[in-house]
């Protein structure tokens, strides 16, 4: 009977959550805003991520096989569909289009339900967690990620990536992943964890700005904003509010459709926690 009871309870909570914006059950709701107009594609965030998260350097051969481990990857597109096709132009009319892509921390994540051992699951902070030591490496999650932002340890990269003394730089707050484990951007969960722990030690609440992800901290143009969407004073909440992206709805009910906020592949209903602000070009 408890199955039925739980099911009814969860379902009603879920329905209620949808109506209320989808996250009222959470303690925090970590979210991000990336202003594509400010992003210069300089790669600083990506290298900062390598430094913070013990990402393995796989080398040229494995990179060529598509086995690289860049949690934060900067994509570069040459075309600009919204501005009309520039293919007829002799040389590039505008610059390139850069897209920093890391795990979108979907709230209706497609990776979570398919993990056979629940190594990918949703935390009460609204994060897509990946528990490395629970992962058995079925790679189903990566197949089911429409953003292709999960990276698999195809080899024991640690054997070659950090020849001594490079291994002294490894961050002890995060496991160094061995072969056969899926990994991905965690919104620097070790920083979140430390900040929450520190706040609890001081019996206070987390302030906006207590936690900075590695990419946000280093971003030279401050294009990345990170924070708690449930804190209505936080920068990230204000930006979401300003650009009228909302969690919990597949279709954004924007008063002004020209506002810049959008989430990647919103039509798939994955409800990412990352809002991108559209790039602007003077034409």
């Amino acid at each position, binding site marked *: 009977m408890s199955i039925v009871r739980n099911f009814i309870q969860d379902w009603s909570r879920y329905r209620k959550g949808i109506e209320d914006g989808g996250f009222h059950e959470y303690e925090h709701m970590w979210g991000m805003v990336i202003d594509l107009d400010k992003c210069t594609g300089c790669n600083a965030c990506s290298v900062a991520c390598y430094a913070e998260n013990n990402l393995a350097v796989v080398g040229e051969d*494995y990179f060529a*096989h*598509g*086995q*690289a481990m860049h949690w934060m*990857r900067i*994509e570069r*597109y040459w075309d600009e569909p919204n501005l009309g096709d520039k293919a007829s132009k002799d040389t590039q009319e505008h610059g390139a289009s850069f*897209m920093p*892509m890391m795990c979108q921390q979907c709230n209706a994540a*497609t990776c979570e*339900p*398919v*993990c*056979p*051992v*629940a190594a990918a*699951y949703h935390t009460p902070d609204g994060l897509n967690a990946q528990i490395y030591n*629970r*992962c*058995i*490496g*079925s*790679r*189903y999650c*990566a*197949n*089911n990620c*429409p*953003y*292709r932002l999960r*990276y*698999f*340890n*195809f*080899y*024991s990269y640690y054997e070659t990536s950090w020849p001594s003394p490079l291994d002294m730089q490894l961050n002890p707050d995060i496991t160094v992943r061995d*072969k*056969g*484990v*899926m990994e991905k951007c965690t919104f620097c969960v070790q920083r979140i964890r430390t900040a929450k722990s520190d706040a609890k030690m001081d019996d206070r609440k987390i302030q906006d700005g207590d936690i900075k992800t590695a990419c946000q901290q280093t971003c030279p143009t401050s294009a990345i904003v990170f924070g708690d969407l449930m804190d209505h004073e936080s920068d990230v909440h204000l930006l979401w509010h300003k650009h009228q992206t909302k969690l919990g709805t597949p279709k954004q009910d924007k008063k002004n459709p020209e506002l810049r906020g959008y989430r990647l*592949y919103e039509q*798939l209903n994955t409800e990412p926690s990352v809002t991108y602000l559209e790039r602007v070009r003077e034409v």
Partner: protein
Amino acid sequence: MAEHTAATKDIDEKIAWAKINADVLRSMQNPRKGYWVALAFCVGLLSIGIYAEVHQYDIGMGPSNLNNPHMWDLYISTFVFWIGMSHSGTLLSAILHIFHADWRKPIYRFAEAMTTFSLLTALLFPIIHLGRVWNMHWVVPYLSDRGIWPNFRSPLVWDAFAITTYLTASVLFLYIGMIPDLAICRDNVKGWRRKLYTFMSVGWRGDDRQWRNFRKTYLLMACFLIPLAVSVHSIVAADFAMAIMPGWHVTSFPPYFVAGALYSGCAGIISLFVLLRYFFKFEQYMTLPILDKTCRLTFAIAMVWTYLNLIEFASVWYGHDVTSKEVLLAKFFGPYSPFFLTMLFFGMILPFALIVPKIRHNMPLIFIVSILLNIGMWLERYMIVAPTLSLAYHPWTWGVMWPSWVEWGIVIGSIGWFGLLFLIFVKVFPSVSMYEVKEMVYHRRRVVFDDAEERVMKPSRQEGS
């Protein structure tokens, strides 16, 4: 016995029961040189697979060439293929048993063995493809100190349940159906075999009560197995259909997979039929009319499969999903088009060869056709797994990948593993059901007898019924 090998000749209803026993038992004795060659060949293939797997186990999944868009490839497609192969036995023994199609009787035993062994082969693949094989038992719910469970929402967990259940049921079915034959074997052999058969035939004496219980159990198992067979492949289809990827997220996948499974299973039966008939000289039992029926059945299933295939294309084509359409177009015109078009030819056009009696009765030709059909079905599975991963939503990560020697090695090894199991089976267990052939012959005789009776002493028959 030459008259029995004539093309259209059905089983000889006058055949002596002792001869049936003798023929089948002969097939289990004294392996000839050819058997050992075949066995060595299979062991060779298997050792390639073992070597590849040990290499992969040591190094990681990297040597298999899998990469970021292609997290799955040959392993999963071959897994689905072997699961498909396993459906033949159920079809022949359970479904046709319920429908009282007596022509199944001489061939269902090896078809069931095929079911069991292809399941055992299929079972390896989800395990082999795991990045951390040594933790595979986490997929199974068991009481642990940690108090955590698998994720019951994951189709992979359903797979684990479905496959293990199906495997258990089909092993039981195979075994139960074999008990009377094992008793025959027990009574005719000496040495370790006698011990084995004595143990396995569980005191079968062939008395009335035993036969009654046996028939009930067998029918019950058959009824139990049919929904299982449908569910196991539907669940395998759910691995894909539950994902949101274009080309996988298809509503018609479960029936499509089941149809495909029956299709490849039947094609597999035809192949083994031809082999057994040739090597064990089973021409009297595995007669051409039986092959005809099997081929017709295969053709019918092929048409169902073709229809579902076309439905899938149509629903993608007339749907609004751009990404699904891209994947479909990429299958037709992209880098995968040689495989895809081959698969369409083998799967949709080639089965028409099965309705030509001349081809059906040409043993080498029908063998080649059946192998090609199965290659087509294997390609079908590959064409489900690979193109979607190559071209999903995010163009930045598009890419085509060619499997490495490790993946091929393991796929080849799986064929060796299946062959090895099957070769051992045919020498240890009767690959033709003796008692059912007798039954069949008996029934045929009854028909002949009854016909004669009808002509001569009609009233008494009416009385009797």
